[in-house]
């Protein structure tokens, strides 16, 4: 999502220098996007989380892996027995939960970024091929998509991770594979829709190369749904990675990944509610922020909902 944000930042002042020009599409988009309060909140939450993640080493009060043996299972600061230096309490081996959550944001964002990038590149490529070449290629790709869609995604991800071995990287690969069908379908549908349009026919007749057609003419027109899907893909990726971590197949200790933290904290549900509650909340807030922003993007990009 970083690309979109920087684009916006870069473009807005540029437009300001030339007041007489008609409003650029980006500016129009930004106006519509910023009308949506939820989307703005989502965006700002993501910005804050990103800043926290980037500067985790500076922001976090402690190292995420340092074990304070004398402070195991310390409650949050506002509870009796809590300490201000361990604001959200400590985990069973005496690590600061707040610090782990802040460092964990890195992993969650990283997971989202890697999964979305991977699935976007592969999914778009396959979708373009399927939509453009039709026939055998299309059939082969779309039947594979059908097969993948028929399998419960979590089960598929679980099996893929089991094959590759439990680790964060493998969990990301598994999730990227599982979400592929959505990108393929969106791209293909957009390609099919564009192919019937006159400008495509015109450039074809004019002898434009296949590559040019695919990437210069057609792809930009499929961007809107893909951007929305990619934003929402962040939340799916974070949720799925947490689920895999929860089932013990994601990041391995002592990595402060949120899902893994939850799995580890499960046994303390009644004795130390904070160990269990905060990682879950962190996941919820982050995912919610991405979904809010994704919704805003959809509304801003989807011409059907234009007022």
């Amino acid at each position: 999502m970083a690309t979109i944000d920087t684009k916006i930042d870069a473009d807005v002042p540029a437009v300001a220098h030339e007041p007489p020009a008609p409003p650029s599409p980006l500016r129009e988009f930004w106006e519509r996007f910023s009308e949506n309060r939820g989307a703005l909140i989502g965006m700002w939450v993501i910005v804050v989380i990103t800043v926290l993640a980037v500067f985790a080493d500076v922001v976090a009060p402690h190292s995420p892996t340092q074990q304070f043996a004398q402070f195991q299972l310390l409650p949050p600061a506002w509870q009796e027995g809590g300490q201000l230096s361990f604001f959200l309490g400590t985990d069973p081996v005496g690590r600061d939960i707040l610090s782990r959550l802040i460092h964990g944001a890195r992993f969650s964002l990283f997971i989202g970024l890697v999964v979305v990038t991977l699935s976007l590149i592969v999914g778009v490529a396959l979708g373009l091929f399927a939509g453009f070449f039709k026939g055998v290629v299309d059939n082969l790709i779309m039947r594979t998509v059908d097969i993948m869609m028929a399998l419960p995604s979590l089960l598929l991800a679980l099996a893929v991770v089991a094959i590759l071995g439990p680790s964060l990287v493998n969990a990301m690969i598994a999730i990227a594979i599982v979400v592929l069908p959505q990108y393929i379908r969106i791209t293909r549908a957009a390609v099919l829709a564009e192919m019937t349009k006159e400008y495509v026919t015109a450039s074809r007749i004019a002898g434009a190369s296949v590559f040019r057609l695919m990437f210069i003419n057609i792809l930009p027109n499929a961007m809107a749904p893909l951007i929305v899907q990619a934003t929402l893909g962040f939340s799916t990726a974070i949720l799925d990675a947490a689920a895999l971590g929860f089932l013990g197949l994601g990041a391995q200790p002592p990595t402060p990944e949120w899902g893994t933290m939850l799995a580890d904290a499960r046994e303390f549900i009644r004795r130390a509610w904070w160990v269990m509650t905060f990682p879950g909340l962190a996941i919820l807030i982050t995912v919610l922020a991405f979904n809010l922003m994704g919704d805003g993007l959809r509304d801003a990009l989807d011409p059907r909902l234009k007022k």
Partner: protein
Amino acid sequence: MLSFVLRRLALVIPTFFGVTLVAFLLVHLIPGDAIDVLGGERGVSPELRARLMAELGLDKPLWQQYLIYVGNVFQGDLGISTLNRKPVWEEFFARFPATLELSITAILFAIIVGLPAGIIAGVRRGSAFDHSVMGAALTGYSMPIFWWALLMIFFFSVTLGWTPVSGRISVIYFFDQPTGFMLIDSLLSGEKGAFRSAVSHLILPTIVLGTIPLAVIARMTRSSMIEVLSDDYIRTARAKGLSPFLVVNVHALRNALIPVITVIGLQVGTLLAGAILTETIFSWPGIGRWMIESIGRRDYPSVQGGILLIASAVIIVNLVVDVLYSIINPRIRYAS
């Protein structure tokens, strides 16, 4: 119409083949096998391992194993569980009603709550109600389901003691289960309090499993409703002075529901994925938990058979949804 259905059916066959291959490859590529599990900390002697491999047919090359497997599948034989030597069919159908019952109640819950909420939110667009429904829906949609389940158990079962913690019915009830659906069987049994017990066991898992479909349905209904309400014919109807009630319920709703039906159909896959986590946490004796356990035990026939049957169910439901959709909205038939 018929040709459309036939065309769709023809697509199902390669998908089905593909699923058998994927299911087979997936389980066989996972390192470690059923014999390793059997051995546990102790391990298995090479002689016993060789004998077991031969007996389970694992000593043959992979492609031969696959051909044998597919051949058996087309004769309706899904094999025998390596764990307890029972036919996979039998194992599946012993658990399927539990998953089906939970899925049905979850989707009903999602529809009963989500549909009206979405309609009202759509009609009163921008109102406080709209904002709170959409806020809640998005939160539900963003919820890590396993965490949600644990919070619900902790709050409603442990702290408040309102609902039982897990299982399908209190163990004090023991009766014949002709249908496998605990709600129906408990009524048929005539035992006092059995139905009540079955209902109270269903509540939390239903809410947890229904949360995401509920959010999706509410959001879809709302946006579909907004779109339809802005259409010309609705404006005409309004202009003609038809009562708002009539406009919404008769004209708008019918059209707004078309995409909603598709969405509900698509939730079947989501439900099955959600069921894996929900069943694990609520000790629900269904397919999801069985799959996880079978993968953990490398029970190849059970995993393959289970994946195949789940996938078949998803394929069939999608087919039905497609056909339904094409009946409601004939344009789609020519479009694809």
